[in-house]
């Protein structure tokens, strides 16, 4: 009988971690639907980016208020995880405050957790106010209606409740320590919950134990539920931000990828010895599709980008097209990519393999009007605190429109014809290129 809590805990822990692992494997499987990319270069530089941008939050503080609040919540999240480790050991072995054996250092540790928990609570409440009372514009764009808006608030509620449970647990524990209850070792320093514990002053020991145990269980179960909520939410960034930053581009932002498949064809066209009418060699690969119309045409890094996006909207609020009322929103590009990828994933779950569903990323999710509104200014790429590149997806979808469908806007076709015929986007003769030197 006495082992029942331990067994229940083990079951909850195994179920929580098991289900999470299953879903993460799905994320990995879905990302692998994308085209493989070699990013094995510049390991040092990439690690440096992870340390600076992801761990060090260097791009978050470009917006100081949100950046500072985020650092508080992020630090709290990382540090309070040490406490979760203690809770797991206690839960599995029926111990209580197992780390208290480390002596005075434990007081500092618990004190630090408490202060961080309070700061996180304040930070999260301020985040909620920014979203729901202050109604900061980037949280109220068209693509944020419905689930994305609720998702953001659910995450904040989760964090508020978890922090409150943690502090309630400590407050009841402190009271029990004062009463000298068996099993409740006198350990820890409680700079925050000591102000809560007077609420429990006249409670009986058994009531206190009930409160402490309830808070303890709800806290750890809450963490396991929250862990499993990640997969269904934009909150995956707490894990994926790190690999995503690692795989982020190291090249100057102006360098757009040259399509190797095109290089091959252009070289063939320019080779005077090549026979333009030659049949393709036996067993030759089918010609590659140019550009992207669906998620499978994108790279694995672009798909990782989509899962990493936490919909903060910094990209969209910096986008010149979006700021001037165009439909384009770089954040929506990322959200659409993820939504479509999830849809493809579910299709595979059901059918064992992808069965064409008559849908694609282009048109069914991202419209041409959005794609053509981009000025390729890189403001979205610069703004992203976790190195997501919405611009590359826009570019590859344009490539599909132009090279596979010849569906460029009319005026652009004119400019491209000019470039092809006379080497300039305007209808001027190449032979007149130096005329300016003789004009007054």
């Amino acid at each position: 009988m006495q082992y029942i809590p331990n067994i229940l805990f083990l079951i909850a822990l195994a179920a929580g971690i098991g289900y999470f692992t299953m879903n993460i494997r799905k994320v990995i499987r879905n990302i692998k639907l994308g085209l493989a990319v070699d990013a094995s270069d510049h390991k040092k530089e990439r690690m440096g980016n992870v340390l600076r941008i992801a761990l060090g939050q260097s791009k978050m503080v470009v917006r100081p208020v949100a950046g500072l609040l985020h650092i508080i919540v992020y630090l709290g999240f990382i540090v309070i995880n040490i406490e979760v480790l203690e809770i797991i050991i206690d839960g599995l072995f029926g111990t209580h405050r197992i780390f208290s054996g480390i002596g005075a250092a434990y007081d500092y540790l618990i004190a630090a957790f408490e202060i961080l928990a309070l700061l996180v609570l304040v930070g999260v409440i301020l985040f909620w106010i920014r979203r729901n009372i202050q109604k900061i514009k980037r949280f109220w764009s068209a693509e944020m209606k419905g689930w994305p808006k609720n998702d953001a608030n659910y995450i904040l509620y989760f964090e508020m409740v978890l922090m409150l449970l943690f502090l309630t647990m400590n407050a009841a524990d402190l009271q029990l320590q004062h009463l000298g209850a068996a099993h409740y070792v006198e350990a820890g320093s409680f700079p925050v919950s000591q102000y809560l514990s007077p609420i429990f002053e006249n409670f009986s020991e058994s009531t206190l134990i009930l409160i402490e145990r309830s808070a303890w269980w709800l806290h750890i179960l809450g963490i396991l539920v929250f862990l499993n909520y990640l997969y269904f939410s934009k909150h995956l960034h707490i894990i994926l931000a790190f690999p995503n930053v690692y795989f982020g581009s190291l090249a100057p932002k102006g360098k757009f990828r040259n399509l190797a498949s095109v290089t091959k064809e252009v070289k063939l066209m320019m080779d005077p010895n090549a026979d333009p009418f030659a049949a393709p060699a036996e067993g030759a690969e089918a010609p590659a599709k140019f550009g992207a119309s669906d998620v499978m045409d994108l790279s694995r890094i672009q798909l990782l980008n989509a899962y990493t996006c936490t919909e903060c909207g910094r990209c969209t609020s910096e986008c010149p097209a979006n700021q001037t009322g165009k439909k384009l929103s770089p954040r929506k590009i990322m959200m659409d990519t993820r939504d479509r990828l999830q849809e493809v994933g579910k299709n595979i779950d059901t059918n064992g393999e992808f069965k064409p569903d008559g849908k694609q990323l282009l048109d069914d999710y991202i419209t041409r009007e959005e794609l053509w509104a981009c000025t390729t200014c890189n403001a979205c790429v610069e703004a992203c605190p976790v190195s997501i590149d919405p611009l590359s997806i826009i570019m590859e979808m344009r490539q599909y429109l132009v090279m596979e469908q010849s569906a460029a806007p009319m005026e652009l076709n004119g400019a491209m014809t000019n470039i092809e015929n006379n080497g300039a986007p305007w209808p001027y003769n190449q032979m007149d290129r130096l005329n300016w030197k003789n004009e007054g």
Partner: protein
Amino acid sequence: MSDAIKVPTMAEYMAVGKQPEVLFWVGCAGSFDDRAKKITKAFVKLLHNAKVDFAVLGTEESCTGDPAKRAGNEFLFQMQAMGNIEVLNAYEVKKIVTACPHCFNTIKNEYPELGGNYEVMHHTQFLKTLLNEGRLKVEGGKFKGKRITFHDPCYLGRANGEYEAPRELLQKLEVELVEMKRCKTRGLCCGAGGAQMFKESEAGTKDINIERTEEALEMQPDIIAAGCPFCNTMLTDGVKGKEKEADVQVMDVAEMIANAEDL
């Protein structure tokens, strides 16, 4: 200044068996656009003034392919790129300077993989080098004390991380440099990039160049300084749209330096 400016071509250099110090890549705007041609000529004057041994490709130059690439036409881009690289490599070009950030970005970043490896500089970077080497003198002249705001071209700034060269040059002109709220890494695009220059914009509430011009005009500048022929056009149109062309000029940094000295 006489009507005709001395602008040697690579072919002429080749004919006498010589190599210039640098190739001036003029670009399509610099060659054909009336406003941009003035920038081209101002830059040439500065090159002459600093006794830089330069040449242009002239009729052998062709579009870098930037607008085609950003429009999604990778084929046309690579055709243009390989054609240009063939010409540049035939002349054994080592160093290129251009007054267009789009040409600058494309040749610098996208040509190497296709076989074109050159040292590429934006004209503001090149002028800064000339200044540091003492070959070019930049003094306040008529712009001294004038209120100037600089509009960062996306393909010089964010795309290639160059924010300081144009500003250093402006500071040498002893101007009062005022920064817009959206500047440097957070600079707002003029609206021309990504081949937008060559198409109508999508439906919205405002044109991007108007949004940017309004921001620049809020700074109450005498001159809006630019470093890109396309930004120049967009902002000039914006200033005209706001009926402010009598009070505010849009000028390239190179034009300002050339005009300060009345070259």
